[in-house]
């Protein structure tokens, strides 16, 4: 479990994290989403005890990151941004070293290293020098390191950055696996990424937590004014005029496509005029080809939430 309260971190002249509060429950996969420089990495560095917050508090697995930092570190597996590794070491040598400094008992070390190598699919490369591995394989070494001591909580900073699509899919699969038994917090600036693995999304923008919830919740909450797409056959002008008179309709854009007319119906706040539209068309004998509620994708939400202030005001 991760609990963050009013977390604030300022570097000289820059506020990196601005009063952020959130919780990630045990066994949950949560994703930090935000453009570069939104404060994702800083927050993760505070949670992993690499940095101290300027103010506010954070606890990981029930231990305070400042006062019980060693307890936190023993329970967290961390993959930092850019995956730094001691590249002159061999894969299994590196993992043995890491297992040792993370306090894995000597008797269990060999078995644990074997297990994680198996899990990330590096068993055949265990004798390779890390320097000579491809980027994707190095990423797996970093992931293996993050879980070698069987941590309760796994924190992954941009785990799929720079990987090819196949590798991205593999890593995603691995993260899903991890999420079955552990708490996972990952970060990304790619939406589809987070949407695919995370049950909960935390959107950060310029150091602030601007939204949190499931992808659907966030989209739903943000979209007070919905939009309905209608395709119908009949007299286009008449349909447009009739639609505009319907309750709950704010504005109609008509797109003439000959026989078939397309309409984008902008709804009034909180209104859902779909039933009204159906009845109207049925009554007038206009054939409905399509009637759909346009759901705002997380992508749209993201660009709205993280837009620079000037653009958001417009």
């Amino acid at each position, binding site marked *: 479990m991760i609990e963050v309260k009013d977390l604030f971190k300022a570097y000289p002249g820059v506020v990196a994290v601005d009063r952020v509060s959130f919780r990630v429950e045990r066994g949950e996969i949560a994703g930090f989403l935000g453009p570069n420089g939104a404060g994702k990495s800083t927050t993760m*560095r505070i949670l992993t*005890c690499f940095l101290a917050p300027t103010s506010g508090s954070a606890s990981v697995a029930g231990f305070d990151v400042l006062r019980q930092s060693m307890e936190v570190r023993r329970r967290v597996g961390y993959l930092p941004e*850019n995956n730094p590794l001691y590249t002159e070491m061999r894969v299994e040598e590196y993992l043995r070293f890491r297992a040792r400094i*993370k306090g894995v008992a000597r008797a269990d070390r060999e078995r644990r290293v074997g297990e994680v190598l198996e899990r990330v699919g590096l068993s055949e490369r265990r004798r390779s020098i890390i320097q000579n591995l491809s980027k994707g394989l190095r990423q797996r070494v970093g992931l293996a390191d993050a879980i070698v001591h069987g941590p309760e909580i796994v924190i992954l900073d941009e785990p799929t950055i720079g990987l090819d699509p196949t590798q991205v899919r593999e890593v995603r699969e691995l993260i899903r696996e991890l999420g079955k038994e552990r708490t996972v917090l990952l970060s990304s600036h790619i939406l589809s990424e987070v949407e695919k693995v995370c049950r909960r999304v935390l959107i950060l923008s310029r150091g602030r937590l601007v939204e949190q919830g499931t992808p659907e919740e966030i989209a739903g909450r943000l979209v007070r004014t919905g939009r309905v797409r209608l395709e119908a056959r009949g007299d286009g002008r008449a349909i447009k005029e009739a639609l505009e008179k319907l309750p709950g309709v704010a504005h109609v854009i008509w797109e003439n496509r000959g026989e078939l007319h397309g309409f984008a119906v902008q709804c009034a706040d909180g209104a859902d005029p779909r039933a009204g539209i159906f009845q109207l068309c049925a009554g007038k004998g206009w054939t409905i080809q399509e009637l759909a509620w346009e759901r705002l994708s997380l992508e749209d939400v993201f660009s709205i939430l993280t837009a620079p202030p000037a653009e958001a005001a417009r």
Partner: protein
Amino acid sequence: MSNFLALARRELGVYFVSPMAYIILTALLVVAGLVFVFSVSAAAAERLPADYAPTLQWTCVVVALTSALVTMRTVAEEKSRGTIEIVLTAPVTEAQFVLAKFAAAMVLLSYLLAVTAGFALILSRYGQVDWGAVACGYLGVLLVGAVTYSAGIFISSLCTSQITAGVVTFALVILLMMANLGGLFLGPESAVAPFLQAVSLTENFGDFLKGVIDTGRLVTLLGVAAFFLFLAVRVVQSRRWR
């Protein structure tokens, strides 16, 4: 303790997978070897007993001057590669992190000195060697090394670039070696002169060369080394708060 040993072992490994240990060993053997040959043959020509002191003295100079090469990467490289983040988010304290680097450097130094001790063995085959004085001299070299290495680790902890760390460490070591000259220059009435004399590596090493273990010298050298290591630990800790 297990943490500390694992970290120190990794550090030591780095010296031997990179050419650094071999470069320093070569420099040491060439310089000490030449001095050894010249000093022994000079003594033989004058029909004087062979003196091992010049060899020890130059061993000490080479150790001090190469300490920048040994220590410049220690912390700076971890910072520039980002690996400091994986070490210090594992259950490792900053003190363990810094002291493991120091311990590894000292083990490397002991190894280097053990190899150069071969000259004393050669000498003992042909004449009398005062083993007490030789051991005392080597202890002096180790202590001087402890000071220059800890200074180097401290400088490295302040830098992100290894090159910067190396250059600054080299300059600092020269200053530490020549501090006694500064003392002489300022004259006996100056307030800082006694201090400069006291911390000068040359002054401190002189007694060990004579085969004397002076408690004051011992405490000074160990104290200066401990001081630099303390500073290095503090610098590494401070990153959390910046």
